[in-house]
């Protein structure tokens, strides 16, 4: 029997991870991406390997996904992770009032935590705000976004997946009976159109998922929600520093290489393909970031940028769940041959891929279990050296 064919649209985190998962399950996988790998939301991710603490009070489903996947990613892709942990710190009375629900939430989601005195916290991280009132040590980490995706893509390639970059999906090929049977493609490097057919098309375009689904006459309740981040030119801390309170703007500072990155904000947009970096948001990042690490005030800005989260629109902005969702469009719009994966967090990319591949296998009547929990990923550099 010949291998089942899958086309994945989008080479961000979910596209790369789904390619890896489906390739391991015996699929002949082709990933198409209109730019280079990770040029959209994934590449600009803040880079926090969430332990789930941020969601432990209000969104426990996401929190549990985060801690489980955090532990797994440390095992399968240590090459791109700074595994140094994180702190949640309280700076005022309102933060302190959050302490008890935070402890309860973390315990409910099996997130290990240890409360530190301000003195202990300052010994670990001398550059955090010395006026802190309490701190919790939790198993956060940070990662290099592009290299995280490349590691999945490299391993997928090793197992036969093909990555066609600068290759845009211009429309979906329909069979006239309400099914998707392939993708019309424009090779942007040569300006030549061609078509590609497959048993299943996976729409892994994140914030752009609505645009691809629409090509088949389907829709996805994804709400693109950008946020601004600012990188500063000094590595003040070794751990992710979080504000102990309900998630808000600029309440996470991460170390990355010689920098720290403060993020993020949350707003709504019309045009997905170009989102300006709003200057008042940049100023807010400085104000909020300096509350956590006062030295940021005297640091130089290294980069100001934004990324557009693909939130599932069950709520709006901060209240929307961070969990992910797979849609079988046979069920949502009676369109066969097309599934969409969107929502989620970078930290949960492997689980998102597992859910998507499970759905694909079920649709095609295949019994092929997921094995990605146990497969150590190849060096990200091999993405560039393995043949396509």
């Amino acid at each position: 029997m010949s291998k089942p064919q899958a086309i994945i649209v989008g080479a961000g985190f979910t596209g790369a991870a789904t390619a890896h998962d489906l390739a391991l399950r015996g699929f002949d996988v082709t990933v198409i991406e209109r730019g280079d790998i990770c040029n959209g939301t994934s590449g600009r991710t803040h880079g926090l390997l969430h332990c789930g603490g941020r969601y432990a009070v209000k969104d426990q489903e996401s929190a549990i996904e985060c801690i489980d996947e955090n532990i797994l990613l440390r095992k399968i892709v240590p090459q791109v992770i700074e595994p140094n942990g994180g702190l949640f710190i309280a700076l005022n009375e309102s933060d302190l009032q959050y302490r008890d629900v935070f402890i309860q939430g973390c315990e409910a989601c099996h997130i290990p935590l240890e409360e530190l005195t301000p003195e202990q916290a300052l010994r670990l991280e001398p550059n955090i705000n010395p006026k802190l009132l309490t701190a919790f040590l939790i198993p956060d980490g940070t990662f290099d976004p592009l290299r995280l995706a490349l590691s999945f893509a490299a391993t997928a390639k090793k197992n036969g997946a093909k990555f066609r970059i600068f290759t845009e999906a211009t429309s979906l090929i329909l069979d006239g009976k309400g099914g998707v049977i392939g993708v019309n493609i424009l090779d942007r490097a040569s300006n030549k159109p061609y078509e590609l057919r497959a048993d299943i098309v996976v729409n892994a375009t994140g914030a752009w998922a609505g645009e691809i689904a629409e090509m088949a006459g389907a829709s996805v309740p994804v709400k693109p929600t950008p946020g601004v981040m600012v990188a500063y030119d000094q590595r003040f801390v070794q751990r992710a520093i979080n504000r102990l309170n309900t998630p808000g703007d600029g309440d996470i500072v991460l170390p990355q290489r010689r920098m720290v990155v403060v993020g993020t904000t949350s707003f709504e947009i019309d045009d997905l393909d170009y989102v300006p970096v709003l200057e008042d948001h940049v100023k807010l990042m400085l104000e909020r970031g300096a509350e956590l690490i006062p030295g940021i005030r005297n640091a130089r800005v290294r980069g100001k940028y934004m990324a557009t989260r693909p939130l599932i629109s069950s709520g709006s902005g901060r209240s929307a769940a961070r969990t992910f969702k797979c849609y079988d469009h046979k069920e949502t719009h009676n369109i066969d041959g097309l599934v969409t994966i969107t929502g989620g967090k970078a930290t949960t990319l492997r689980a998102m891929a597992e859910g998507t591949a499970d759905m694909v296998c079920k649709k095609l009547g295949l019994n092929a279990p997921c094995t990605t929990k146990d497969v150590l990923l190849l060096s990200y550099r091999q993405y560039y050296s393995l043949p396509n």
Partner: protein
Amino acid sequence: MSENWNITLKVSRQKEGEKPHFDEFKIEVDPDEYVLDAVERVWAFMDRTVCFRHACHHSTCGACGMRVNNVEKLTCITYIRDVTHDGGVLKLEPLRNFPIISDLAVDMGSLYNRLETVGVRAILPAPEAEIENPPATWDSADQQYIRLADCIECGLCISACPSAATSSEYLGPAVLAGVQANGIKGNPEMLNIVDAEDGVWRCHSAFECTAVCPSYVDPARRIMNLRTQVIKERFTRLFHKA
């Protein structure tokens, strides 16, 4: 907010099988935007066929290197103000010494291959990563911190290097810098790789790599140091054998 500028982006274009040429795009910019922001707007609003590489937009991924007015720049952190003026031109070309995929996008496979072959570390213990702002002292607990290396594998040094232009087999600054950081003591295999025509001796000490490095790696100094390591290792082995 500063006054906006009107500038011309002169973008090198080359599709498969075509001859290279420049296309000009007149665009209004805030001079405190980055060069990459302007390129992205050209793609979003003016010409959807422009190909370029980018991912992180804050100098950690190394994807967006280009030649900007003849100098290698990481475009996501290069302020427009620093490379042109109101009414001025930004000439954008792909990095040199790599094959062109399309327009401004190059294939960096050779660099990644070589980095992998010589085992350049992508993450390493934080005290080894030459942090400028460490805690007062690195105590034993600090040794446990791991961090991503300074080198972001952007290829700017390879593009700027006059020696890389003369030999496609030259290991190149980023790769030699990575070997220097690892050290070659007691590693005869690595010694033979770098003590070679296309290793440390191909370098002409032009220091262009250090001039364009956006990530504090200082490859030129590291290559000079690696030469010292090579000579030391050769002497040691000479006497050891005798």
